[in-house]
């Protein structure tokens, strides 16, 4: 998952959460307000291959405050772009810890294995009817995707 921000900076590589943390830390070092955005990014499959269910990733990017007029501006350092119709926003906070997708306290369990699957599918029409059918058989299908 994420690397400590100074380690990611020194390594000059990381995952999207690391790019976001480095950019936020750099902006704040100059006194510029910056926050961490948790979301999804629509992706394209490799040429000639079908889009895989569960293959889309959680994504993270940055908002920088550009004054009262422009307000918060979203920027995606991983892809060197402003956000567009491919960026779905879930939550924002000071950094990953404020908006971690799922965290908790359990009693028991010892060690665990974790499976995460994210699917971002473009739909053409009003989806509720379609969705019902997909939920019915979606559970087993999706779980097998994560394994």
């Amino acid at each position, binding site marked *: 998952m994420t690397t400590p*921000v100074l380690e990611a*900076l020194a390594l000059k590589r990381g995952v999207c959460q690391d790019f976001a943390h480095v950019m936020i830390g750099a902006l704040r070092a100059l006194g510029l307000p910056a926050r961490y955005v948790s979301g999804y990014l629509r992706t394209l499959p490799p040429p000639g291959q079908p889009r895989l269910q569960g293959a889309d990733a959680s994504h993270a990017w940055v908002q920088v405050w550009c004054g009262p007029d422009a307000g918060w501006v979203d920027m995606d350092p991983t892809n060197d772009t402003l956000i567009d119709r491919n960026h779905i926003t879930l*939550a924002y906070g000071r950094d990953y810890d404020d908006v971690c997708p799922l965290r908790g306290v359990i009693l028991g369990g010892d060690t665990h*294995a974790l499976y995460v699957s*994210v699917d971002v599918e473009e*739909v053409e029409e009003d*989806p509720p009817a379609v969705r019902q059918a997909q939920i019915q058989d979606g559970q087993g299908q*999706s779980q097998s995707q994560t394994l």
Partner: protein
Amino acid sequence: MSTPVPPDQPRLPPVRYRCRHITRYSYTVQVVSSQLIAHLGPRELPGQRARVLAVTVEPPPAVVAERLDWLGNPTSYVAIDTPHLDLSMTVELDVTLTPRPAPDLAATPAWEEIAAQAPRHLAVAEFIEASPRLPQPSPALAAFAAGSFPPGGPSAPAPAT
């Protein structure tokens, strides 16, 4: 590996998505109670209309409470008191994204001006400070930032692409 979709051209039609996020834990020893906080949104924003279609938790929780956190993010609190070896949470969303006019980044004030006035704006001041994963002050991060922010430049330099 999948690659990001290239940036949009202006004036494209809205895009509607169905998103499904599955998280599953498999434990080696039975868990007798579990309390979770999920930040699986979505937020309503300019350019983003969104709603939760379904949240499914297995085993069935004893308590589910939907709340907004201190920044207005939707959260779900889930408590499970049924012994279990597997726990799964599936969140399905219906999201429509409408392209917004791109901000005029060149017109933003000089970054020094933003930095000078930010501490006086309560809603943004906390985002200048250190946070759990981001120590401040950080000479290494300041040095990294300096190269991208010449004196008097806009606070939001346009991406290189």
